[in-house]
């Protein structure tokens, strides 16, 4: 139920952001402060999502082998690995850490 509410709310809101300029504001420009905010927000949110999803499970703080996976992903990214390699390395490192623990 909650998932469906999020689906409808996010779909409507996202479409509004996508379509605002093509439908209503053609030829206008964004105020520089809004443009700057839009450019910076993903960095803050994605960093938070990466870290919080590593150290929580079902909303509760849990430190486990996923930390090893995140570290392995970072190493893969430094090595310029493509996305698919990054996630597979993270999963493999986590699985290995659990098998050894």
């Amino acid at each position, binding site marked *: 139920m*909650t998932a469906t509410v999020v*689906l409808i*709310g996010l*779909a409507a809101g*996202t479409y509004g952001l996508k379509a605002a300029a093509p439908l209503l504001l053609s030829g206008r420009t964004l105020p520089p402060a809004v443009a700057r905010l839009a450019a910076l927000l993903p960095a803050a949110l994605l*960093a*938070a999502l990466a870290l919080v999803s590593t150290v929580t499970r079902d909303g509760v703080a849990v430190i486990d082998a996923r930390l090893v996976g995140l570290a392995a992903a970072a190493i893969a990214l430094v090595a310029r690995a493509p996305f698919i390699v990054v*996630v597979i390395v993270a999963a493999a490192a986590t699985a290995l850490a659990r098998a050894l623990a």
Partner: protein
Amino acid sequence: MAVAPFGVAFGIAAADAGLATWQASAFSLFVFAGSAQFAAVQVLGGGGSALAAIAAGLLLNLRSLAFGVSMSTALVGPWWKRAAWSQLMIDESTAIGSAQTEHQWRRYGYLCAGLSIFATWNLTTFVGAAALSSGGDVVTTWGIDATIPAAFLALLWPRLADAGQRRTALVGGMAALALVPVTPPGVPILASTIGVLAGGRRREPARA
């Protein structure tokens, strides 16, 4: 960003968060914004409120407004065409469209990229969600739960080349971590937006 593996990763994340396969597919059809879908599903799966999940997704997607502004001069036509084309407004379609010089080719590039990614994204979301929904202990045994933070890190990575983005990510990430033990789920993610205060102003090009 390779679309197919990212689509599979989203499907897996959605199933891991407790969404039905049809719900995962509906996100990809109707929201069609990779990182925002990922964020919303993650907040939801962590026990965050619907409002927190929607807000996290929309804050990530504020950039769609900027994409729309940069594409709007090329997306000309009757309102219903502009309305349909707008659904394809994502990073890749805007990047490819904007790389062309003439309006007609900007629109063509935008539509080709948008449609091919829309098809791939939806197909692979379904594959990921359906594959995981049939599983049981595979999530922890195979470390599939670690693919979610890894996917967020991979999305973040290219942004870290810029110093302002790095400061934003550092402050936002640390603020969120600090709040995990003391706030309801979802709140730390939204609170990370404080990080933009550390981003500073984009340096103006020097004037002669």
